[in-house]
């Protein structure tokens, strides 16, 4: 059997081998999560085999619009990204943090048991990998470490996929997050589909990836295979439906708090929070304390929250951000500007989900461009200096 010593030597496998590779992961106790068609969208769910993938489907996306469409081939990965992102696995939408029970004088707190599920993430795009890294920085990169995120992200296997096409709302090239998968994967595939030929170029990212690949049949990649794969990714690069000029974007947004464009976008924004739910990096949450009827057993739950809700900023005396304008401004300024101060990167990966899933087709790339066109100087009044 071939054993691959080099981490970056590429191999080529066919669909049968890919199925076998899924089997290898399952035999190593991984639960596989990957794309499948459900409710007329491509979502992440538990999968078993390549048959579960969105074979022969693609998606057509635009601002406020998402449609599945049949392809004229049997591509496994011939679509872009759906409404789900991997954050639902590492940072679940609803999660119990602890339980507490009271028996007379005794109070017993039970933390949630450590999550030991081994998760294999299948067909993960480059933007998604960057989003995971950004969320990991929020939950585990600072002074405090979120133990649940930490334990969930520890036992993962990532089978990434290079994009062979880009959607109308994609702009990862602007954010330097894709479409080529460059880091953070165990194995990365490029789907090569040409007439009768249906193969996958496999790049090896880690020793673990090499081990898993080694259990299935593969051949060494020829220079032509590499060339073909490169052209496939280049094709996606050339298809980006959107773009953002990120020059000076942190200062641009910071000094434009008073720009009237925020009023204009607020006229359209429904404050529905869809953008924050589909965003793969949005991390805001709230907690909910609940009790049973006896009053002696209580639980704390953490749930996704959104800066678009009124209550989000509530303090005694009222809500800080009462207007839709201020909430949209907070979201976009955080994503593209203050995130840099907080975590050293942008909070946007250019996946385009917020554009696609906005019910009124608000487009973050268009909003940045509009702010840039109407750039005003900062409106804060400096303090007068006394004697």
């Amino acid at each position: 059997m071939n054993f691959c010593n080099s981490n970056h030597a590429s191999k080529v496998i066919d669909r049968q081998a890919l199925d076998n590779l899924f089997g290898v992961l399952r035999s190593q106790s991984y639960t596989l999560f990957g794309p499948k068609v459900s409710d007329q969208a491509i979502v992440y769910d538990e999968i078993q085999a390549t048959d579960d993938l969105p074979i022969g489907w693609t998606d057509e996306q635009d601002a406020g619009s998402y449609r599945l469409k049949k392809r004229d081939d049997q591509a496994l990965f011939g679509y872009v990204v759906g409404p789900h992102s991997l954050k639902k696995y590492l940072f679940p939408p609803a999660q119990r943090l602890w339980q507490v029970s009271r028996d007379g004088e005794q109070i017993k707190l039970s933390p949630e048991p450590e999550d030991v599920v081994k998760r294999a993430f299948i067909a993960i795009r480059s933007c998604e990998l960057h989003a995971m890294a950004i969320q990991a920085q929020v939950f585990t990169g600072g002074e405090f470490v979120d133990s649940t995120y930490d334990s969930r992200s520890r036992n993962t296997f990532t089978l990434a996929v290079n994009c062979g096409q880009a959607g109308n709302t994609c702009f990862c090239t602007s954010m330097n997050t894709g479409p080529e998968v460059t880091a953070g994967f165990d194995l990365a595939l490029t789907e090569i589909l040409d007439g009768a030929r249906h193969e996958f170029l496999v790049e090896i990212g880690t020793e673990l990836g090499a081990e898993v690949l080694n259990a299935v049949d593969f051949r060494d990649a020829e220079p032509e295979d590499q060339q073909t794969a490169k052209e496939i990714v280049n094709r996606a690069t050339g298809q980006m439906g959107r773009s953002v000029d990120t020059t000076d974007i942190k200062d641009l947004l910071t000094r434009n708090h008073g720009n009237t464009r925020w009023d204009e976008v607020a006229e359209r924004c429904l404050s529905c929070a869809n953008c924050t739910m589909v965003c793969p990096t949005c991390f805001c949450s709230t907690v909910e304390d609940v009790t049973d009827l006896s009053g002696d057993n209580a639980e704390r739950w953490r749930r996704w929250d959104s800066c678009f809700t009124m209550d989000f900023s509530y303090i005694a005396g009222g809500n800080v951000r009462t207007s839709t304008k201020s909430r949209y401004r907070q979201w976009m300024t955080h994503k593209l500007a203050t995130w840099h101060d907080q975590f050293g990167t942008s909070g946007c990966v250019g996946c385009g989900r917020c554009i696609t899933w906005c019910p009124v087709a608000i487009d973050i790339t268009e909003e940045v461009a509009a702010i840039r066109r109407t750039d005003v100087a900062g409106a804060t009044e400096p303090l007068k200096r006394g004697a």
Partner: protein
Amino acid sequence: MSTLEFTKEQMVLADPMLPTWFRVQCVRRETHDTFTLDLACQDGGGRFSFAPGQFNMLYVFGVGEVPISISGDPATKEIVVHTIRAVGAVTRAMRNLKRGDQVGVRGPFGSAWPVKEAVGRDIVIVTGGIGLAPLRPAFYHVLAHRNDYNRVVLLYGARTRDDILYRDELKLWRGELDLEVEVTVDSSVGRWRGNVGVVTKFIPRAEFDPGNTTALICGPEVMMRFTIQALVDRGVETRDIHVSMERNMKCAVGFCGHCQYGSKFICKDGPVFRFSEIEDIFGIREL
């Protein structure tokens, strides 16, 4: 218990999202809507250390959790003191707690008043309403180390006579010969023959050296804005002014996103900020 298990238990307890249990020693009424909660570590032997200006997350069984600044003496390690205004479901439930009841505590969190940096300088404390509570630990510290500081000024404004917090202590402090303590109320109803008006009116005439002053401010944002302006007018540099900010908070450790204030997280970058660090964003509406 093996060493390994012990290590694990320590690690679980170190999780910042998990409360530890404290017992209510006493619930003291301060004013018609404020009260002070004295908490002791459950087993009686525990010690709690904090820096003046920090806060705890307090959990009432089954009701919920709120951020409350610590308002006791930092030199006291056995009892943790919080002064609370009963304004919501959780704080109203806290007011009904009785001696012996248990409260979940996470903390202490956040930044502190710069009591060390202020050594050798004049201290000017300006507070409004319940803003006196998070400043009391700093004031206790200054009193306990009185010789480390030059002039000490405490300016306090309350809504009415009946809203004056820590009345007995204010009287005591006002009686000290080496402290300048001024109290004013916004509106005079009933029997009040003291100062009426905003707290900032004391600033132009208070005794302190603007070039060698550390100012500590906590109160409603509008009060802080006018206070800062009055201090700057006197010649105090914005880097020598420190303010304590408030925003919604769910986690206190930077995960929940609620307390964002521009690029700052109030919970971990604040609540106490050097004013020069937030000068650019302070006062922006709905930020």
